[in-house]
């Protein structure tokens, strides 16, 4: 009997211990269940942050006090007013942490190469990638180089204090649920973390690997194909951002372009065969595809379903394009419009702030984790940005030898690779060693059988782009704006500018590397002969100020006219959005109709300019072959014939055209790529030069096709080299049309008039944390990748992440909108409260009437600061 009791007791104790162990042991990357489900401190006790409303307080730090008024408004903005500048930034840091803590930490951890410490081994390649970009070292160097008596340092210092004050006060109720699930407790925020986000931004805006597949093209394709497919300057219509006739001064120098070759492979290191080189390049491409955040599907596919906090960081800072323009009204009022096309996520990549302090009243959007306002306006100036997309990444193949292991030949002597020994903490695994190898001209990204490829990026040198925006926030005129711009070096943007004095301009200043020989479009020989010898001098960097056209614009199109003396890159966007903006601005200027309404009309325009180029020849081809079309194809033809090229959700013709153009592009180029053995490992289907995804098919190939279709319809490149079939544009267009109708019939049924664009094309606000179920949408949506109101891809989560229009003569009437809301917490009404406005093409008045009077400081004569 007693033994039985002992057994029962033992069993009870064992069961209890098993439960205790179950509750204490992490499951995969999750925190232990005992923590996650703890009713008092786990996921069950979370509450969302405060909703809309205003409150006043007095903030005291050390011996300094400041009066503060904070208003949270249901338009996606947090408004802070104080009688002390430091208090404004302190409060900005505090409130950003309050509403976006998980987002800012995940971004910083990812860029610092620490994400696998939270998410586990599946994201180790990402950590290795960002360690290879030297983020920890570069951010440290930036912080060390800061001028501690500067305004920007003060802003950053107090912003950091504010973030940490929130973290110190963080209760379990306010700990983000995703942190609880992953068992992560945020460490104190550092200035380095802020600069890590800067590095993430600058890499996403300026990192490129196109040189790798282009080198493969040079090695696998004959020169005449390279000339035809990849002209160094596109032959189709282009409106450069900085045309010669608008600023002759920047063209009036010698430059380096005459010393470069653009159609030949660079010399190979001695003893390396073509095949070995190609395999090394494929390895370098794989390095990006497996670890670079720009290649969205690679890492996401490796994660556990459901637990995928990385996927949308992958997407979160990708940049498919943007628009901005400035224009003068007939009376000389300067308008500025901007819509950067980043990923549309919930929470948004942006958070709206109005910051009011002594001499400052700025409103706009900010990246969580970074002080100030990034894009916006103040009472004196407005600014916006699009990615200028110059080439600031260069690739080299080092000269190595089995006789000199661990060394490379550079500038006449053998030098050892510098080794940076990293240890990456991986959740569930422990510390994983990782070595970064450095040469004089970059970091090693691939080493295949002794063929060493390195990458050099301007972002691997310490620069403080964040200072630019802080100086913009307080700038009162063009001189002060340009002073701020002088800090912007990496991730070069077309900064549009308008001020209350009627000045307009666009500036793309930064570090443009200059090389004096070789083919910079491809991987260059790393022996020192082709290294950067400097940067384009500021006076010759692209800009336009008060042009004779009375407007200027940028939409990621080619930067300069063909005879610009410096090489600035060659892979820009097709220019279709720019063409449309140029057309509309010209029309509105001619009609003296530069108003908020006309600027909105441009920003929301969904006419695809490519239809101007491709639709007439397609209709011509179809109309001359009607007898060969099926009845359904004839119906489709009729729809196209009556179509104006607008990608509205109820347009069936838009659907037909979209799929047709993709097929036409594929049918023309794919046989050639197959013929020349361009493989997926070479980047086929991944890079725009090799028929990348449909979301980005606005690369050079589409311009070739537009040119050939309209000007050279019988050019040999329409032939099929595999079958030997002789073809022309008409044949390929009809082939693509036939394919398209078959595809759409099987996808959407046999009635073309029901193939509405809104049935196949949606917008989605994707969950930033990769939790698909927390995404918002999808919504049937207008636009495509070529429309000004862009919506890239069929389930589009990239588009106008922020829309702003300001007339600087009356800046208080400035309007704007971003999708999502202030809060990252799905339980908050501020998680998704601005989306409907954004989807419907509506705008908020950025500084609406009815706020406490402090928020009109510097706008209205009687408005004052708190206290």
């Amino acid at each position, binding site marked *: 009997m*007693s033994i039985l009791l002992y057994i029962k007791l033992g069993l009870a104790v064992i*069961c209890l211990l098993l439960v205790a162990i179950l509750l204490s042991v992490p499951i995969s990357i999750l925190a232990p269940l005992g923590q996650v489900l703890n009713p008092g401190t786990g996921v069950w006790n979370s509450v969302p942050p405060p909703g809309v409303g205003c409150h006043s307080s007095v903030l005291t730090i050390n011996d300094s006090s400041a009066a503060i008024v904070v208003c949270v408004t249901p338009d996606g903005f947090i408004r802070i007013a104080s009688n002390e500048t430091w208090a404004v930034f302190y409060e900005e840091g505090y409130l950003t942490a309050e509403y976006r803590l998980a987002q800012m930490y995940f971004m910083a951890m990812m860029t610092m190469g620490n994400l696998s410490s939270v998410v586990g081994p599946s994201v180790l390649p990402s950590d290795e990638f960002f360690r290879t970009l030297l983020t920890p070292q570069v951010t440290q160097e930036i912080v060390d180089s800061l001028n501690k008596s500067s305004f920007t340092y003060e802003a950053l210092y107090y912003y950091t204090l504010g973030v940490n004050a929130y973290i110190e006060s963080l209760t379990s109720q306010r700990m983000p649920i995703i942190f609880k699930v992953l068992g992560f407790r945020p460490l104190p925020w550092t200035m380095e973390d802020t600069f890590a986000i800067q590095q993430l931004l600058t890499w996403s805006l300026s990192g490129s690997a196109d040189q790798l597949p282009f080198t493969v093209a040079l090695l696998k394709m004959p020169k005449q194909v390279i000339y035809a497919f990849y002209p160094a300057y596109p032959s189709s219509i282009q409106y450069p951002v900085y045309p010669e006739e608008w600023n002759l001064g920047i063209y009036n120098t010698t430059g380096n372009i005459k010393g470069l070759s653009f159609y030949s492979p660079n010399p190979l290191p001695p003893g390396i065969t073509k095949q070995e080189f190609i395999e090394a390049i494929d390895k370098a491409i794989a390095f990006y595809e497996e670890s670079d955040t720009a290649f969205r599907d690679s890492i996401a596919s490796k994660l556990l379903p459901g*637990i995928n906090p990385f996927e949308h960081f992958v997407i979160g800072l990708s940049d498919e394009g943007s628009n901005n323009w400035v224009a003068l009204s007939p009376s000389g009022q300067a308008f500025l419009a901007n819509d950067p096309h980043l990923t549309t996520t919930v929470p948004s990549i942006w958070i709206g702030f109005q910051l009011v302090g002594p001499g400052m009243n700025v409103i706009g959007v900010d990246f969580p984790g970074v002080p100030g306002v990034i894009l916006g306006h103040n009472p004196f100036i407005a600014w916006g940005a699009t990615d200028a997309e110059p080439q600031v990444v260069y690739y080299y193949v080092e000269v190595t030898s089995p006789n000199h292991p661990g060394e490379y030949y550079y500038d006449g002597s053998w030098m050892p690779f510098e080794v940076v020994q990293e240890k990456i903490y991986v959740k569930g695994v422990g510390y994983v060693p990782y070595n970064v190898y450095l040469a004089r001209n970059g970091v090693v990204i691939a080493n295949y059988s002794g063929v060493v490829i390195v990458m050099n990026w301007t972002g691997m040198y310490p620069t403080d782009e964040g200072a630019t925006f802080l100086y913009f926030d307080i700038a009162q005129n063009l001189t002060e704006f340009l002073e701020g711009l002088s800090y912007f070096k990496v991730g070069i943007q077309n900064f549009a500018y308008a001020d209350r004095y009627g000045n307009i301009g666009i500036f793309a200043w930064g570090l443009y590397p200059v090389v004096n020989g070789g083919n910079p479009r491809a991987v260059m020989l790393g022996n020192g002969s082709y290294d950067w010898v400097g940067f384009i001098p500021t006076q010759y960097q692209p800009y336009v100020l008060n042009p004779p056209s009375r407007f200027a614009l940028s939409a990621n199109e080619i930067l300069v006219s063909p005879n610009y003396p410096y090489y600035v890159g060659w892979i820009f966007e097709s220019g279709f959005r720019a063409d449309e903006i140029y057309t509309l601005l010209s029309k509105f200027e001619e009609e003296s109709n530069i108003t908020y309404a006309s600027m909105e009309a441009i920003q929301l325009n969904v006419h695809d300019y490519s239809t101007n180029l491709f639709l007439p020849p397609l209709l011509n081809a179809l109309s001359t072959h009607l007898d060969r079309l099926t009845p359904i194809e004839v119906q489709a033809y009729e729809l196209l014939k009556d179509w104006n090229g607008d990608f509205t959700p109820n347009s069936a013709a838009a659907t037909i055209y979209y799929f047709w153009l993709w097929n036409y592009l594929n049918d023309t180029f794919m046989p050639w790529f197959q013929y020349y053995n361009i493989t997926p490992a070479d980047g086929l289907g991944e890079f725009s030069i090799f028929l990348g995804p449909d979301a980005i098919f606005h690369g050079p190939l589409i311009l070739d096709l537009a040119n050939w279709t309209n000007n050279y319809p019988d050019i040999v490149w329409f032939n099929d080299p595999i079958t030997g079939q002789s073809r022309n544009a008409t044949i390929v267009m009809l082939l693509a049309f036939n394919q398209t109708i078959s595809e759409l019939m099987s996808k959407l049924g046999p009635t073309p008039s029901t193939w509405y664009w809104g049935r196949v094309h949606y917008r989605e606000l994707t969950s930033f944390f990769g939790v698909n179920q927390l995404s918002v949408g999808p919504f049937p949506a207008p636009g495509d990748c070529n429309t000004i109101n862009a919506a890239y891809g069929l389930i589009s989560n990239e588009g106008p992440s922020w829309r702003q229009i300001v007339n600087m003569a009356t800046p208080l009437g400035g309007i704007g909108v971003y999708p999502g809301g202030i809060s990252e917490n799905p339980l908050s009404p501020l998680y998704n409260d601005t989306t409907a406005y954004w989807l419907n093409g509506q705008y908020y008045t950025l500084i609406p009437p009815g706020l406490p009077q402090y928020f009109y400081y510097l706008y209205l004569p009687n408005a004052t600061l708190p206290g």
Partner: protein
Amino acid sequence: MTMSYTTRFWVLFIVNLVISFALVYEGYWLLMAVLGLIIGYSLNANKALSAFTCAGVPGLLGVLISILANPYAIYDGEVTAAIIGLPYSIVGSIILLVITLLIALALAGLGGLVGHYIRKLIKR
């Protein structure tokens, strides 16, 4: 004056419920096992099932009350369910809630059983 078994059961049940709620609310829900052990010992029940019930059910209820005291709790459960791959709906939340309650029942109830058997052994 000695309490009848039934009275003792319900007194301990209510005491357990109140203390469980307090422990859980403050985040010390693992201590429900210790509390259950004390309850199971104090109950001096004839049947192990009674000890398990008197210790476990109040623990479960304490957890449930503590969770439902937060008006956002069910929604928190939905978000958590979405993050870990369960349905982002009331169903996902209820699945997690049931898991949580079962854990509470197991913790407190098994504690009660241990207490019960210790008492039996000491009595011998």
